[in-house]
């Protein structure tokens, strides 16, 4: 494409079907402790 570059991203819609295993790290939103918030995380299954 000439006008648009798309970064490689996980398709959230697809993750509805394949996600939800719950094995990912618990994330503290206010990050006062282990400094892990949802947006900053990676999926354990995709690692």
């Amino acid at each position: 494409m000439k006008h648009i570059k798309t970064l490689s991203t996980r398709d959230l819609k697809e993750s509805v079907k394949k996600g939800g295993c719950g094995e990912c790290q618990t994330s503290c939103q206010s990050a006062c402790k282990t400094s892990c918030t949802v947006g900053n995380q990676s999926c354990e299954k995709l690692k």
Partner: protein
Amino acid sequence: MIHQYKSNDYNIVMDVNSGSVHIVDDIVYDMIPLVEPLMNEGIKDPEIIKAAVLNLANIPYPDEVIIEAVEEVLALEKAGQLFSPDIYENAVFDFKNRETVVKALCLHIAHDCNLACKYCFAEEGEYHGRRCHMSYEVGKKALDFLVAHSGNRINLEVDFFGGEPLMNYQVVKDLVAYGRSLEAAHHKKFRFTLTTNGVLLNSDMLEFINTEMSNVVLSLDGRKEVHDRMRPFRGGQGSYEMVVPKFIETAESRNQENYYIRGTFTHHNLDFAEDVLHLNDLGFQQISVEPVVASDKESYAIKEMDLPGIKREYDRLALEMIRRHKEGKGFNFFHFMIDLSGGPCVAKRLSGCGSGTEYLAVTPWGDLYPCHQFVGDEEFLMGNVEEGIIRDDIRNQFKCCNVYAKDKCKKCFARFYCSGGCAANAFHFKGNMNDVYDIGCELQRKRVECAIMIKAALAEEEVFDSRADRQSII
């Protein structure tokens, strides 16, 4: 929903519902706000859209270029990467009825501390109550409770927290050993972490931490004057000189991985990028400096009038990080970390931090709370390690807390990165978990924008993944 913004000469377009991120030229950037309302009305006919865009006088480009750009936009729409619908809100009913298990505990190993940090939400470690150290017996019961209530989860997390957990170090060691003894029989894997102010840290403890802790959080605010202002000993002396060498040793011994230097910035150091860079200049590569959360009455609290300056500071930090990265001296700033291709699934993004459901805090005497921020708020006392969760109603309240239960989150482009923010902050500031801590939201949005801009800047010539491109090739 589309969110678009300009940062560091990049035009960035976020398609919120698919998670897609696009870097676009000025033509597309100007066009998207014109196309979006048409898409929202269900108008997708390419000829209608082209005609609508061409008819609007304020896009100063040649017609053929506009048509070319419209076709690219429509190709992405067809590939589900632009103007994608929100299909998640309808799934929330099932989400609220989901089974939950406990998979993480925050053990308050000590309601006690050897520093007197001025911003401590735990009132210098005591959490509105009495000084107390967790006994090994209570800790064992906590781990037994966790294993018994974790369902099929293999990975279990236990955070040693406080106060200052190293004040009760023997119990930390004993509980790690006990946890390990449970792993094989119960098919579990413990991931232990520890947060410390570093005052008591010595070589024996460091060896143990490096053997057993998946992560260690080291509290250090930044420049000496900044750190010592907010993190003194009880007698008023600063703690910077004591803890910095120990933390440098810790970071090096872990090969600059699996730790965080964790600082807090306040109203007194709104130029916090200087603190982040100071920490990097000391040699740390895993850095987290986060805004203090405090009542307005405190002089150090972040005020609304501070927000424009803080946002500029995040921009400044992002640019400097890119510069250092390109010079081969990159470092990780926690709030700018974002995994676009391997980030969490929607289920996780809806459930957020898991407080009150998957994650509980345990006091030294074994009481259960939704998280460490609620400890001491008696109305949130959920149960104890002997009897388990007694207050199902509190658990349900947290279970139902998600971005679609919060009006402000529903309209926010950052909802799938933030997941609704901190329930404790919402409750303490607004009296309602389904409201939000607005200052936190402003900063979160800014950080997400910076994080994505950094990704764009560092992607440069790397391969981009447009499903529309691949489809057109096919």
